[in-house]
């Protein structure tokens, strides 16, 4: 298993009481899998994705990555975890507006490697891979939505992550571009054996997954994946 989470709960305090966005979830994600998370709005999909990516600290529960415990309460350790192991692809692309396509990738590379020349070379390679080698000096506003998402994917791959987390990556794209982006994610999963976890509303996108998780009210609906700790260890 690449990731195992045990009894994970995330509670938000609201003025009308506490709400469990994630409610005592235990599951495992195997290496090289393409997992899709679906469910109605407010079911806790994005919250689960954020916790898996070390972006959000759960209220309680444990997580192991490659068999090693991740300290989910230590911000510094989580930042290292993200830069070492995780790539993110967001619905809103999450590109820095005043950086070019190449610079958006280089700023991610700079977290792990301060060598500008090496980073530049690697950024160009990644842009070539997503078919944007003629757009290296373009700013996000000069790129189409599909191109921006491809830059975001290239950035997500910058530090060779084992885990690629995608939150509604096709949410802002038309069906044609959606298929293109999903194709790239599938390719990443199959050719590089990168584990992909994708949150989506789209049944078409959900079909790209080799494993599907359905959430409702913060709880897993697919009992096949809802295994207990003993099973995971064995």
């Amino acid at each position, binding site marked *: 298993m690449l990731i195992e989470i045990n009894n994970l709960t995330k509670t938000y305090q609201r003025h009308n009481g506490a709400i469990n966005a994630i409610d005592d979830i235990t599951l495992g994600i195997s290496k090289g899998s393409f997992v899709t998370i679906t469910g109605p709005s407010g079911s806790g999909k994005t919250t689960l994705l954020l916790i898996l990516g070390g972006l959000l600290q759960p209220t309680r529960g444990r997580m192991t990555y490659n068999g090693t415990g991740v300290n989910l309460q230590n911000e510094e350790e989580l930042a290292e975890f993200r830069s070492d192991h995780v790539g993110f692809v967001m619905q*809103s692309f999450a*590109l*820095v507006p005043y*950086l070019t396509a190449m610079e958006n990738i280089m700023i991610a590379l700079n977290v792990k490697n301060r060598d500008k020349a090496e980073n530049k070379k690697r950024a160009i390679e990644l842009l070539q891979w997503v078919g944007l080698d003629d757009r290296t000096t373009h700013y996000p506003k000069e790129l189409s939505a599909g191109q921006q998402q491809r830059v975001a994917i290239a950035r997500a791959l910058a530090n060779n992550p084992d885990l690629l987390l995608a939150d509604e990556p096709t949410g802002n794209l038309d069906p044609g571009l959606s298929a293109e982006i999903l194709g790239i994610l599938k390719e990443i999963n199959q050719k590089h054996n990168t584990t992909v976890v994708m949150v989506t509303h789209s049944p078409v996108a959900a079909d790209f997954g080799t494993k599907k998780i359905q959430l409702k009210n913060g709880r897993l609906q697919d009992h096949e994946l809802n295994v207990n700790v003993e099973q995971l260890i064995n």
Partner: protein
Amino acid sequence: MTLLDLTLKELWHRKSQLISGLLAITLGIGVIVGIRSISVESEKAVAVNLDNLGSNILVLPQAASIDNYYSADIDAPTFPESYVEKVVTSTLPGVDNMSPKLTRSVKIGNENIVLTGILPKSEIASKPIWQSGGLFGNQANASCAPKAGSQPAKYADKKLQRKGIDTLAGYDCFIGSSIAKKLNAKENGSLSIMNETFTVVRVLPETGTVDDDRVFANLHSVQALLGTGEQISAIEIMGCCNEISDGLLGKLRNILPDTRITTIGQIVSTQIETNRLMKKISIVFLIIILFVGGISIGNYIWANVNERHKEIGILRMIGYQKRDIYFILVLKALIIGLIGGIAGYLLGTLSAIWLGPQFAGIEVSAIYSLLIISIIISVIIAILGSLIPAYLAGKIEPFSNMQED
């Protein structure tokens, strides 16, 4: 693409915000530099005038009064001449020249004259008004003036210069213009004082002061003549006006505790007050600038943080630590401080150069050391102003970019 590159690109991307952020700090530093540039020149100008008036500090015996100094009573108290050495060996900054004096009223024929023993070198140097009167050249120099203009007084006649220093060691004397007329004394003539014959080396030009009624002779000759031993009745000191305002009198009192030390005339005290006022104004402005500039920069950085909420979230998402976010914002403040310091210095200096002659009647030149001070103050203001916004920026969650516009 390093964090510095990122910061520079962001600054360039939001140029109009940068200009408004810089405005307060640039104006603030400009005001401080402008005031300081003009006040430094003003102090120099007044220092020149003050030096031209001669001595400005008077050391008298504890029991003496200013009246004793001028009336030269026979019983006026004295103190040891060795006090001069005490001041010299203390190497106090701001003591430019000293003139020890022994003054007594004596009779020559039927005339009462004031006989004053002097050590000529210091006396001459501390009386530029004599030099300007033509006796020892015509170049008066300010002790407090800038270094370039503070060469020793130039003497037109080398022979006179030598005479002024050396020949008074014997029984030569200078005689004031008024008493010279009364005694009908002529240059190179002789003058009998208390049964000793003195040669009149020079009749001094009229000064309109008590000096016109004095006869100046070598201090040690006068001491021997009066039988006082190595005693003097006063030390006249030419103190640098800036040092006087910085507490020179107090320092002298520490060295010579059993004396009475005072300044001569209102000019010194007026100048001290003026200098103090200028310094106070500068400090008040500095405090205002610190507050206004700091708040202004803080406000700018905070607005910037709010605007960059998503960007900061993106950086956190891809693995940057909180400390990297602090670094980016403090680096930005540092760059603004640096630019603001340089721009403020240029603005203040150019304004002072332009406005100084028009409004203060003073030629102002650039003070290069103020550039460093401007940059340091500006950077400190900018960094202090950015600390709270930077701290708050560190609290931005790494998933902030997931919130839709």
